[in-house]
């Protein structure tokens, strides 16, 4: 009896499955011909059929309740999935999503990115304020098309093709890693690395994957020693990751040369962080004086922080003051270009698109801050002479005069020396 059942399982079941595949193809050859053609030309054909990835519940497929996620692929591609899950790519949804429960244009399909079915517990712990400010349409295309990478292999691999040529080209990375906030693709393309790659191929010039996904690793964070905001990761981890990146560099360069180059980039990043911090400090000074227009209490509530001044990674680009608008550009665009340009060995991005813009942003922010302070004093009845009572001490005034070009360097240094001597009693 047992033998009969076994024979049934071996002979009849595959046949029924085959019939199932045929039923998909029967319709989808007409409904989605490209999908069928691509699957038939892929490495998945014929052993991995439609139902292996999509399941068999057609109604739930159509309603969007079931979709092919990275976990589906991970059932077979376990190593790739595990590397991906431990990399920054797995943070996509965490940084690009937020709970839309209370939003009028809520799309219930979005829930599954953060929640398991029938669970109110969120899998992700970070919400994105900028995402929550957008319309459903903008969230779908402008946010999710990139940030879905956490749970969607097809973000890079496409839906039904398995041709590795696609994912071994830097072009696939450009889909997301381009544009004003993180133009890594443009930086690479116009660097010596990129130029060599495009003219001589992967064996001479590195692609994105050569450095960030060596040996086909799906851990794109390999060798990265900084957070997405340009801050240090913990030293113990950074030391290990730096050595991993140097292993990659050492395939073409002397290890010490590569180490020095990355350390120069570390310094550039620290300098950029200092400039950014100076601007943030100035804005907080204005915020503390309640001079931002509109003030945080006069604006629509920040989706995560309410009526507070937010200048961190949850900063918005709308419903805020002009001063913050200047800072957003500085932080999100120019700061990122400066240090990312340095790590990607692109001089123009590091300097002109990055550092120069960063410093000009600081000039704009300081000027706007001073204007707001002067305006406030005038409104308080400061009289016909604009500007507050000069409560700066001698050295502050002297340095300011020099920076404004009111005295030569020699005059400044002489006056400064005299002042410091007098301060410490040497000049008496």
């Amino acid at each position: 009896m047992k033998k009969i059942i076994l024979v049934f399982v071996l002979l009849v079941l595959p046949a029924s499955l085959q019939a199932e595949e045929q039923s998909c193809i029967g319709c989808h050859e007409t409904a989605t011909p490209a999908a069928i053609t691509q699957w038939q030309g892929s490495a998945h054909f014929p052993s991995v059929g439609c139902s292996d990835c999509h399941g068999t519940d057609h109604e739930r497929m159509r309603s969007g309740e079931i979709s092919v996620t990275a976990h589906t692929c991970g059932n077979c591609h376990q190593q790739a999935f595990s590397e991906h899950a431990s990399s920054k790519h797995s943070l996509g949804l965490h940084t690009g999503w937020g709970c839309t429960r209370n939003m009028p244009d809520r799309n219930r399909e979005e829930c599954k990115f953060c929640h398991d079915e029938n669970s109110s517990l969120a899998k992700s712990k970070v919400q994105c304020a900028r995402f929550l400010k957008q319309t459903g349409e903008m969230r779908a295309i402008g946010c999710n098309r990139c940030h879905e990478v956490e749970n969607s292999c097809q973000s890079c691999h496409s839906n039904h093709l398995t041709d590795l040529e696609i994912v071994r080209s830097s072009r696939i990375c450009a889909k997301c890693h381009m544009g004003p906030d993180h133009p890594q693709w443009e930086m690479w393309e116009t660097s010596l690395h990129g130029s060599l790659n495009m003219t001589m191929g992967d064996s001479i010039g590195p692609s994105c994957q050569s450095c960030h996904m060596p040996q086909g690793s799906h851990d794109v964070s390999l060798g990265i020693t900084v957070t997405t905001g340009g801050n240090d990761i913990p030293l113990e981890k950074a030391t290990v990751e730096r050595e991993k990146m140097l292993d990659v560099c050492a395939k073409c360069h002397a290890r010490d040369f590569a180490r020095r180059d990355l350390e120069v980039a570390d310094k550039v990043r620290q300098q950029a962080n200092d400039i950014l911090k100076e601007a943030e400090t100035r804005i907080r000074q204005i915020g503390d004086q309640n001079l931002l227009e509109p003030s945080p209490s006069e604006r629509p509530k920040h989706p995560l922080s309410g009526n507070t001044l937010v200048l961190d990674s949850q900063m918005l680009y709308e419903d805020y003051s002009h001063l913050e608008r200047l800072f957003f550009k500085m932080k999100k665009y120019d700061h990122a270009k400066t240090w990312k340009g340095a790590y990607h060995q692109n001089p123009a991005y590091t300097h002109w698109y990055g550092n120069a813009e960063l410093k000009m942003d600081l000039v704009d922010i300081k000027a706007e801050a001073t204007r707001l302070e002067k305006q406030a004093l005038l409104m308080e009845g400061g009289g016909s002479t604009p500007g507050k009572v000069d409560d700066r001490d001698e050295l502050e005034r002297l340095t300011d005069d020099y920076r404004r070009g009111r005295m030569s360097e020699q005059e400044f240094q002489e006056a400064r020396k005299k002042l410091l001597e007098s301060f410490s009693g040497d000049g008496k």
Partner: protein
Amino acid sequence: MKHIFLLGALLTITGCAGAGLHVPEGSQLEEDLLRVGRADVAWSGDAERLVVGGEDPFVFEVASGRKISLGRSPVNRVAFSPAGDVVAAVVYGDDGEHIAIFNVNGQQKATQPMSGRTTGLAWKDDNSVVWSSMELEKFGFGGNLKTWLSVWSIKETTVKSTLIADNTLNSRLTEGIDLAIANGLDNLAVGPYRDECMISHYVDPPLFPPYINVTVRRFTETSNQLSVKADIDSSRVFPGTDGDSIWIKRDQELRRFDRWSGKELQSMLLDGNNFAVAPGSGLVWDGRNLHRGEQVIGPIVADRLLFSPDGAKAAVVKSGMLSILNGLASAAPFSAAFDVEKMVKLRSWRAQKLISHEEYLELKRKLLKP
């Protein structure tokens, strides 16, 4: 009988006094003066008085033993003003916490409403009250924690609050912080010149273990100067004696960092989370022993220890009883060695990068009083 001899020998060797308090040789203990439980305690600048919070807050005159009540409302935090003429206290009321100012006769002089839960209280150089507070909001996925620093200018009757950090935290950390705040989490310290403070806040980065970030924040320039990481289980921070360094707990050790460059200067093993640094003399209590530099002076086993501003005395709390330890290495606060006004100006120049660090050190050396 053998046991009695053994106990006697142990007491003699360790210098153990009374109810199990071990104290360094040469110091004198006024034992079990007050029952303070877990209430907050603070010294006056001249180390003549203590203010004690709790259910029945009071000022305690050390010499006479007199207690002056500060009203009947429970008090969470206490701090003497620099001149010692008034006390700031965080008072629990029907509508939450508020800050109250009492004179040393126990009369309430001013109050200021506040939001959140206070996690630190101190005074600034211009007699303004400084406090840190946290607002913890819980969600299914964890929590959102806002850390605030507020400055109340009593003279100008204004309060300025600055958001120091706004962090998303995992569920476990959220619960831990909630409990820590209830148990008197302390995340604020003011430097010896009272021109800046050190405030710590929690950070929970994705993929990495959570940690505490300690920020040095200038009052005059309202700028953040330094950011160093500390262990997640201790938010306490102490200014270094000279105003140019800070003490925090990292990797289970008590470490001193240069306040300007962030470079590590010194470290010592730590037993638990109880530690204290004397602002005047530079004595360090690591939870079990008293240190001066690399030298161990002697054991002090207690639950809490609070040095007086000159480091000559310490309030020691064990099993809820407060004792006072006298005769510790006496030294005037480091700030007393300088013209404070000039030092504050010099530090402001350094913070604004109007002078280099080398110029700062050279000028500081010249300002040292003979």
